[in-house]
C-alpha cells in the first residue's frame, strides 16, 4: 500500500467534438448555408453567454479519450504504455502530469512529477543555447541551482559546446533536438513521465538517449514511458499497460503485454475488413533468428475453395520484404476447402533471420471468385538476439531487414 505512488481509479476524460453536417448533404444550397451559419452564430453566442466552450460545426458529440481506467503503479516501476494512435496514451499522460483534469474518476500521486511530453518545450528561438538551458530547465521543474550544477554535463551530453552563445534559431535541427533532450535527460524527479520523445535525432544519439533513459529507470525512479518503439519499451520497462480506444485492456509483465498487443492489434485492424487474419503466433514474441509459427485463419468468406495463398511480410515502412508461397507445397495443400466454419493454415519457420523490430503480415489470396491482397492482417514484434560472442550489434535501422547466417573464408595480406 505504502509503495503505490500512482493510483488511478475509474479515470475518464471527455472531449466535445463538433461535426459539420454539411459533409453529408449532396447539394449545397445558399439557403442552407445561410441557415447553418445563423444557427452556428446563435449557438456560439449562447454558449459564450453561458460560459461554455465554443465548438465549431453544428453537431456536437461527446468523445471519451479515456474511459474507466484504473491501475496502480508502485515505486521504482518502469512502465511502458502502448497502444495504437488515438488509444488514449497521451491523454493519460496529460492527466497524470496535471496539464488537464480528468472528467471522471481520480488519481493519487505521491512525489514530485516531471513530465516530458515534447522535446524542447518552451525553447525560445531568439535565446542562446545557454539561456535556453536555464529556461527549459525551469519549465521542466528544475531549480536554478540544480541546472547550474548539471550545466556542464548537459552541454557535454548535447555536444553543443561551440554554439552555447548562438541563438538556437541558428542551430541545425539535430543540434536543437540534442540540446533539448539533454536538458530533459538530466531531470531527477521521483516520477518521470515521458511521451514518445526518443524518436528524435540520429541513430547514434537515439542510442545515447536510450542509455540515459536506462540509467534513469535503473536509478529506482518511477518512469511512465509511451512509445511506439517496441524495442525501447521491451528494453526499458518491466511493466506494460496496453490501451485501446481509451480503455486499459491489459496490464502486466511487459513481454506478455507486448505480445498481447501484437495480436490484439491485428484483430482490431482486421475486423470486418478482411476475411483472413493471423490468429496465432508461436512464440508470441520471437527472437531474431529464432523459430516462428504463424496461423492464418479464414473466416466468413463466401468462397468455398482457396486456390492460391501466400503469407507476406512487410517492414514497418510498408516495404514488402518476404513471401511464403503455399503453391510451392503444390497439390499437398492447395486447393484448400474452406467450408462454413472457416479453416486455418499454420506456417512454420525454423529460423527467421529478421532484424529486431516490428513487422506486419499480409496475405495474397486467390479464391474461386477473385484474387485479393490483404494488408496488415497481423503484427509481430521480433526481439533482439542475445549475442553469444558479446558483439554489440549496430542499431536496428542500420542493419536492414535481414541478418544473414553465413560462413566465412578469408586470406590475409602478406
Amino acid at each position, binding site marked *: 500500500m505504502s509503495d503505490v505512488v500512482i493510483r488511478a481509479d475509474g479515470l475518464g476524460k471527455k472531449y466535445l467534438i463538433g461535426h459539420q453536417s454539411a459533409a453529408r448533404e449532396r447539394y449545397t444550397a445558399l439557403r442552407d448555408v445561410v441557415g447553418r451559419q445563423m444557427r452556428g452564430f446563435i449557438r456560439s453566442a449562447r454558449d459564450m453567454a453561458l460560459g461554455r466552450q465554443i465548438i465549431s460545426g453544428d453537431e456536437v458529440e461527446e468523445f471519451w479519450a479515456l474511459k474507466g481506467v484504473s491501475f496502480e503503479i508502485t515505486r521504482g516501476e518502469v512502465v511502458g504504455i502502448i497502444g495504437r494512435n488515438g488509444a488514449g496514451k497521451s491523454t493519460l499522460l496529460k492527466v497524470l502530469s496535471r496539464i488537464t483534469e480528468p472528467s471522471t474518476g*481520480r488519481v493519487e500521486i505521491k512525489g514530485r512529477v516531471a513530465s516530458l511530453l515534447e522535446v524542447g518545450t518552451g525553447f525560445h528561438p531568439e535565446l542562446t543555447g545557454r539561456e535556453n538551458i536555464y529556461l527549459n530547465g525551469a519549465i521542466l521543474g528544475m531549480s536554478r541551482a540544480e541546472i547550474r550544477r548539471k550545466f556542464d554535463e548537459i552541454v557535454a551530453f548535447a555536444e553543443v559546446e561551440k554554439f552555447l552563445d548562438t541563438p538556437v534559431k541558428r542551430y541545425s535541427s539535430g543540434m536543437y533536438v540534442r540540446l533539448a533532450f539533454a536538458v530533459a535527460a538530466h531531470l531527477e524527479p521521483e516520477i518521470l513521465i515521458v511521451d514518445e520523445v526518443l524518436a528524435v535525432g540520429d541513430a547514434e544519439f537515439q542510442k545515447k538517449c536510450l542509455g540515459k533513459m536506462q540509467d534513469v529507470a535503473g536509478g529506482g525512479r518511477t518512469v511512465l514511458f509511451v512509445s511506439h518503439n517496441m524495442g525501447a519499451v521491451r528494453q526499458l520497462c518491466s511493466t506494460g499497460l496496453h490501451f485501446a480506444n481509451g480503455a486499459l485492456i491489459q496490464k502486466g509483465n511487459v513481454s506478455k503485454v507486448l505480445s498481447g498487443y501484437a495480436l490484439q492489434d491485428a484483430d482490431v485492424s482486421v475486423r470486418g475488413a478482411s476475411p483472413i487474419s493471423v490468429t496465432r503466433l508461436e512464440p508470441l514474441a520471437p527472437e531474431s533468428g529464432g523459430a516462428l509459427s504463424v496461423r492464418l485463419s479464414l473466416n466468413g468468406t463466401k468462397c468455398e475453395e482457396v486456390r492460391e495463398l501466400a503469407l507476406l511480410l512487410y517492414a514497418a515502412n510498408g516495404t514488402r520484404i518476404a513471401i511464403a508461397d503455399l503453391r510451392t507445397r503444390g497439390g499437398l495443400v492447395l486447393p484448400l476447402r474452406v467450408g462454413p466454419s472457416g479453416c486455418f493454415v499454420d506456417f512454420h519457420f525454423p529460423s527467421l533471420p529478421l532484424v529486431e523490430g516490428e513487422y506486419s503480415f499480409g496475405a495474397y489470396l486467390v479464391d474461386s471468385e477473385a484474387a485479393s491482397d490483404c494488408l496488415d492482417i497481423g503484427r509481430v514484434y521480433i526481439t533482439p538476439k542475445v549475442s553469444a560472442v558479446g558483439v554489440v550489434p549496430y542499431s536496428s535501422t542500420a542493419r536492414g531487414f535481414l541478418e544473414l547466417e553465413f560462413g566465412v573464408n578469408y586470406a590475409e595480406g602478406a
Partner: protein
Amino acid sequence: MSRAGAAEQERVVILEAGRATRNYWRDLWHYRELFAILAWRDVAVRYKQTVIGLAWALLRPFLTMVIFTVIFGRIAKLPADGTAPYPIMVFAGMMPWFLFSSVLTEASGSLIGNANLISKVYFPRLVVPAATAVVALVDFGVNFVMLALLMAWYGFLPNWHLMFLPAFVALAILASLGPALWITALNVKYRDFRYVIPFIMQFGLYVSPVGFSSAAIPDQWRLLYSLNPVVGIIDGFRWCLLGGESQIYWPGFVLSLGVTASFLWFGIRYFRATERTFADMV
C-alpha cells in the same frame, strides 16, 4: 531541488474533476523560479535583434510627452497642477498609464502566446500573466530615470510624498492584473477578446487624465469619472511626484480602489475557475 524534493516526497496530489488544488498559493510560491525565468525571458527577448534596443523604451514616452504637452498644454491651454511644469505633470500621468496599459496588453495575450507551454507542462497558470508584469516594470524603471532627468532640467524637486510611490506602483499593477487575468482567461476560450484590448487602450488614453490634470474635470462629474481605476492611480502618482502641487480627490480615490479590488477579485476567481481547462482549449 533534491533537498526540497525529499521533504516533499510524501506529498500526495489528488487529481479529480472539479477539484480545486489545495495549497494553490503555496504551489505558486514553489514556482517562483519559473516566474523569474519567464519574466527574464520576456525582457531578454524583447530587445534581441533590435538595432537601438533600449532606446525604444526611451523614445515612446518622450514623444508622447512632447505631443501631449503641445496639444493639451499649448493648444488646448488646459491648466497644470499648481505650479508644476506641464511636461512633468504629463510625464507623471503617463508613467502609470503606460504601466497599466502594457501590463494589460501583455498579460491578456500571455496565455495564448504561451500555448505550447500550457499544453505540455504543468505549473500554476497564474505565473504566465504575472511574469509579463515584470517587463512592464522594467520599462517603468526606464521611464522613472527619464522623469528624474526631466525634473533636473526644470529644476523641480519632489517632496516627501515620493516615499509612497512604490505603493502606487503596486496599485497600478494590481489594477491592471485584475482585468488582465479575466481577459486572458476569456481569451483562451473565446478569441474575440483579443480585439477588445486595443479598444480599451485607445479609448483609455483619452478617457484617463494622462495629458491633462484630473482637476480639469467639473466637480459634479468627478466621482463618476473616478470609476475608471486609472484615474485614482494617476492622481496618486501626481500626488507623489509633484509634491504639494497636486491634490488627491479622496472620494474618487477610494472609489478607484474599490473598483480595482473588485476587478482583481473577479479576475482571480474567474482565472482560477477556468485554469484547469486551459490545456483543453488553448
